[in-house]
């Protein structure tokens, strides 16, 4: 494992009004691994993603991506450090087609004014559209390319959301509940797809409620409760951790219920 982690969160904190949402949180995401971020509802998982991607400023602490301190880098610049993310509530641009949404993912690679004024839709073919279409084909969505994305089924939108983030060619990809709302077949396809991403050298951080999914996919798990880390380790280690069982189940011990917690 490399000495420089893909993501290093160092003693960060965030409050909204009088509520401490994240409190003295530190953890690292090893390079090239698949890390899960889990915890009960309201534990602060999505807030961590929002802090890492710069949507909210930190109250204190620091965040580093691949060894570069990005604490004071604005949200629009962090993608340059190889960070991309997906959203729990899919955030596609409803008034654009599936293909155009994916073109948006390439924005960071398209360059300055020339990239901005490059004709995307004047000549029959160009490299950006070809690349986006190929990416749609890879996930079996070539038929939806020219449909308005707002009209598409949920599972399809979910995949488009993921492909769009991939086309930013990130080194670190934050996925907020990628399996939520998917049927078992789609979930298996997603698993295989995400494993493929790691093979291409992308580090993944996944927020997910489906423990089955995490057990299969992730080698590293960080557990949050009330904005603090209560456990960290392999899925096996975390599963048997006392504080984790307590956070999910109260004081009652029930292995069955925990392994299916959702």
């Amino acid at each position: 494992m490399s000495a420089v982690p893909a993501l290093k969160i160092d003693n960060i904190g965030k409050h909204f009004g009088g509520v401490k949402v994240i409190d003295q949180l530190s953890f690292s995401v090893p390079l090239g691994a698949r890390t899960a971020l889990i915890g009960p509802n309201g534990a602060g998982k999505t807030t961590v993603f929002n802090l890492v991607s710069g949507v909210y400023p930190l109250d204190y602490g620091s965040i580093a991506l691949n060894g570069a301190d990005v604490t004071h880098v604005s949200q629009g610049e962090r993608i340059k450090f190889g960070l991309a993310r997906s959203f729990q509530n899919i955030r596609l641009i409803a008034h654009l087609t599936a293909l155009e949404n994916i073109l948006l993912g390439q924005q960071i690679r398209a360059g300055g004014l020339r990239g901005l004024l490059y004709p995307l839709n004047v000549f029959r073919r160009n490299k950006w559209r070809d690349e986006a279409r190929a990416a749609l084909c890879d996930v079996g969505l070539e038929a939806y390319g020219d449909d308005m994305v707002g009209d598409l089924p949920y599972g399809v939108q979910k995949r488009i959301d993921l492909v769009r983030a991939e086309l930013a060619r990130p080194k670190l990809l934050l996925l907020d509940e990628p399996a939520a709302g998917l049927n078992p077949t789609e979930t298996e396809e997603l698993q295989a797809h995400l494993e493929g991403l790691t093979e291409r050298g992308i580090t993944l951080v996944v927020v997910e409620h489906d423990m089955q999914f995490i057990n299969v996919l992730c080698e590293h798990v960080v557990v949050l409760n009330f904005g603090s880390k209560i456990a960290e380790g392999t899925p096996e280690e975390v599963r048997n951790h006392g504080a984790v069982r307590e956070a999910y189940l109260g004081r009652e011990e029930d292995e069955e219920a925990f392994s299916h917690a959702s």
Partner: protein
Amino acid sequence: MTSYQTGLLVILSINIVIAYGAYLPIAAGQMNLGIAGFMALGAYASAYVANNAGLPPIVTIFIGAGFAGLLALIVAVPILRTRGIYLALATFALGQIVAAAILNVELVGAAEGYSVLDHFGLATIAPITIATIAVVAYLNRTRFGLNLTAISQDELLANLFGVRTRRLQIAAFTLGAFFAGLGGALHAHYYNYIRPQDFNILLSIYIILFVLLGGTRSVLGPIVGAAIFTFLPEIFRDLDKKFSAFFDQVPDWLGQASAWRFAIFAALIIVFMMLRPQGIMTRGATRAAARWVAWCVRRLGFARSSGARP
């Protein structure tokens, strides 16, 4: 073509150019209620330079448009900090300031108005309108257009993907002001006489309505909106004569039936907006229109070739 018809086409051409002035910021999610102010600046700057510097008006209209764009660029940084209704009010105030300032400048006739020497007819104005449509249609097919739509829908998301949201909004606002200034300059050289009150808030509101009614997501939207607003009042003009049987029934206390055409027009706009809040030309409608045109062309070609057969 009668001179009445030519005149209508000129007004339509000018309205289309100005409509794009409102369309570009709206595409980026911003309402510019100061369009008339930018038009006034373009009109007066072009007229003054043409009258005094001896430059041909085909050059001075772009100088006028440039002035409008420059003003937009200067005020964009403070003004685009505001959002929604506050942005609309700030741009409204800006338009009022421009008109009020011109009202005090004796150099361009102040309240008396200003005579413009060089005249433009349809032959000059129509190509400029077509060029404007071409520029906007091109921009719509680049990342610039794509990013504007993304910004208007989800600014945060666009920003996270590396879209320079502020810069693009400033660019759209400035380019819009440029087109408004260009339209204002065309207006000056068509009517050959301009007054500060020609560029009032009512005009700004009408231009916003062109775009909202026509559609904000298609390059055809402003054209359709401008066409409706240009032609519909004209169609209503003779309505009382055509339907005299009906209009003779209108009781006297309601006044002249023909004077009601603007009320009818306004009521129709409200009905339109209720039935189709997304505007007439959505992207789906644009595609359907393109298919229909293609079909007509094929039919026409077929009819001709079969007709040519011996």
